[in-house]
């Protein structure tokens, strides 16, 4: 079985503000084993 997650999230830079404080970043790599509850990204 497979689960596909699709979601909207802030990206690194906005047009109005150069701050990258709200950007979303994945903290995984392809091929990683992951468990429920572990972070995919922040």
């Amino acid at each position, binding site marked *: 079985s497979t*689960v596909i997650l699709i979601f909207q999230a802030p990206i690194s830079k906005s047009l109005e503000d150069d701050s990258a404080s709200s950007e979303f970043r994945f903290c995984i790599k392809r091929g990683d084993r992951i468990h429920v509850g*572990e972070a995919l990204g922040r």
Partner: protein
Amino acid sequence: NSSKGDSFLVPGATLATIVMLGALHARRLYGDKKLEEARENGIEIEFQPDVKATFLRLLPLRSISRFWGFLASMELPIWIRPYVYRSWARAFHSNLEEAAKPLDKYASLREFFVRTLKDGSRPIDSDPCCLISPVDGTILRFGELKGAGSMIEQVKGFSYSVSSLLGASPFLPVIAEEDIQQDSEGQEIIPRHENKKSWWRISLASPKVRDPAPASLTTGLFYCVIYLKPGDYHRIHSPVDWNVLVRRHFSGRLFPLNERAARTIRNLYVENERIVLEGRWQEGFMAIAAIGATTIGSIELFIEPELWTNQTRKNLLHSEPPEERVYEPEAVGVMLKKGDEVAAFNMG
């Protein structure tokens, strides 16, 4: 049974079958090892349709799936249960220490397969800014969706669109080419336009849903594909706090979903039976697509227990539009907390 003693002889045909199965298994292990080595060396697996994939389309996969489910749900004698489940765990690398109940309490393989875990086995990352994995599994692909088509790569050389995966979604941000702008470094970014009609496909079913985020924010659309091996824990949890607004059920095919299938079957994720949950979280759109396979063909949805998947009558209806349900109350739907159990994959 020989007349000279009590020694047992295996009939020739049985022996030949065992040898053949052993050879096939060894070949498969060898293939998997080669793929793993290629992945470690950074070599991309390419799409290569083959005859076996074409042959799969001719097989009654739903009937096979349902028969497997029937076999797996047969109650086993108590004494044999630990042996069967330990063998399963050894074959598919499951951790039996985490099972919530003693092994002899699972009446059937189907029940064992969808077992819950002991409390604390899966601690939830409490960082409010993090999005957690909804399942145990292997990360196949992830990234940001860009461009008007919003395509997800199945493997190198073949992609499918998000809209074909999720169906006609009233909430999916529509990324039109004219909406994509570039920042000072040439990176594509998508500004929010509260009043721009192209941003949302307004639905008659949920006309009140609007993007509540401040207009100054810039968002992207991201995806993550996670594959669950047979030995993995097969329950789906909520990745964030969110409101599920719509459920869609696509009664498609039930192709296997392993790496070989992804490499050889076109539109694998779009053709297979699946449930899509859509809604909103604090940053905007959120959707989970749970895709069934031949052996794990049915999906149980805890927020809608009356929903049945992998039904015989839907065998020929995979070309029909999905069955959709809008959760009440409208525009609020079903609220789920991060880590809540949402669904489970069942055998057959």
